């Protein structure tokens, strides 16, 4: 579902963010991507999102070679990927419902369908009774769950998360990770960047480790 073939990324300032990275994530699989900050985790996610292009190598997502996707194809590509950010990146000028509905509005669903799907997504993350709340009134964990609902509401085949538990306490972090595991079980391909080794080593999923842009271990 996600495939990296000898991918390197060198930035303009000469920094090698990724060197010859190759790995695959299969459908229904949850893979953790770990390593110190600066090891290349974010760069890797940015390549999948087409926020950047690799210097060398090939990235294939959902059967599409990303180097073949032109500028105009980027939005459609991103609609097939749900993303969860460390700092949630919710829009604070509108209630929870509208935040979650954003990907559906972009995809052009009608109001009835939007309502149905948003409520289903909020139900999955346990925030059904908060749909009219403003994000600022929610706790950090709740905000992150809104972010997750927004990522999965369009039912994308791929779900990415960049340090989704970065600001949460251990109990909340475990809940969030469990949620991602549930999504993998119902058919999503999930790739989570996290440096919380103690948490992810308990979860019995594959862990891909990066060090200074190189893949140093996968188990």
């Amino acid at each position, binding site marked *: 579902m996600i495939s990296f073939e000898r991918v390197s990324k060198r930035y303009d300032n000469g920094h090698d963010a990724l060197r010859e990275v190759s790995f695959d994530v299969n459908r229904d699989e949850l893979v953790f991507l770990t390593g110190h900050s600066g090891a290349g985790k974010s760069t890797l996610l940015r390549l999948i999102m087409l926020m950047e292009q690799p210097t060398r190598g090939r990235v294939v997502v959902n059967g599409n070679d990303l180097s073949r996707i032109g500028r105009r194809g980027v*939005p459609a590509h*991103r*609609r097939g990927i749900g993303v969860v950010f460390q700092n949630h990146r919710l*829009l604070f000028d509108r209630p929870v419902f509208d935040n979650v509905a954003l990907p559906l509005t*972009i995809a052009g669903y009608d109001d009835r369908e939007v309502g149905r799907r948003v409520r289903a997504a909020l139900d999955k993350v346990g925030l059904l009774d908060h749909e009219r709340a403003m994000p600022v009134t929610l706790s950090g964990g709740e905000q992150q769950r809104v972010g997750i609902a927004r990522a999965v509401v369009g039912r994308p085949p*791929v779900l990415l998360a960049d340090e989704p538990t970065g600001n949460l306490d251990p109990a909340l972090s475990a809940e969030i990770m469990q949620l991602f595991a*549930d999504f993998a079980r119902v*058919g999503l391909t999930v790739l989570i960047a996290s440096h919380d080794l103690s948490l992810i080593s308990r979860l019995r999923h594959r862990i891909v480790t990066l060090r200074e842009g190189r893949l140093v271990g996968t188990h």
Partner: protein
Amino acid sequence: MWVLTNMPRLKKRPPEGARVARRGAVTRYRAWVRHHRASAADSLLKILDHPVSSMLTWLVVGIAMALPVSLMLSLNNLRGLEGNVADEASLSLFLAESVDTAGARALAQTLSERDDVAGVRYHSRDRALEEFRQQSGFADIIDGLGSNPLPHLLLVTPRDREAVAASEALAAALSGLPAVAEVVVDSVWLRRLQGLLAVGQRIVLTLALLLSMGVVLILGNTIRLAIENRREEIRVVRLVGGSNAFVRRPFLYTGLWYGVGGGVAAAMLTGLGIWSLAGPVSALAAAYNAEWRLSGLGVVGSCQLVLAGGVLGLIGAWLAVSRHLRAIEPA
């Protein structure tokens, strides 16, 4: 735990991303219309959320548009006045002394049949003397004259009243007639007036062009600020797959609303100016014994003004959006 209690709802199902992309043209058209409607309504609401600053923007745009428009209206009104004057700017044909009343009437008849003549009015020498006696106050002196020194007069109205050249050509043709002693064309000042109007028109055009550019820049800047304020929203929308058109649309509508509001303000300001001038102008016209009224924009003109405002707003928004949106890449 809440996750576990909700778990039974989750069922295995194929991913839907591909299916969304394959939806039909009709569905996509409906979605497009829906987003247009939503963008139009949202951006209007956002503008109305800040009534004072929006009102100020509308006023600025309105004033900038009202200025050339009211100048243009003044010119149009002057041109109407010129039309009135042209009515009276007929050629005066003073006939030779040898021509008697019957001859003058016959000549009037012949002239009125010409293609380039709209009408001929015969003014007999006896009537002219009578009028002169009454109006000048020289009755005694005139009575003392043995004979009438005044010639018969034909007032000829050229067919083509607007063109000074045409009436001068007619004058030249008529002065060649043996019965005609002298032709007087009072066209010099008419020509000056026309020249002035032409200059005025050019000035108004230049001013309109400059101020339109001003409006475009003002609105472009307003939209730029709106874009700055929604930087994070734009980033997030891009990250979750919003196309450029999707991101652009609300800002284009914002520009449209500012422009349309400015057009309405301009129409109102112009109407106000006409209304405040109407009284003095009709008093002035009355002093000249003239039936003359200021003409305003009218319904069609006002609608055109609003439309023009909308177009300027769209142009300004388009410029701002194409310059600034590209700079906001998701980071």
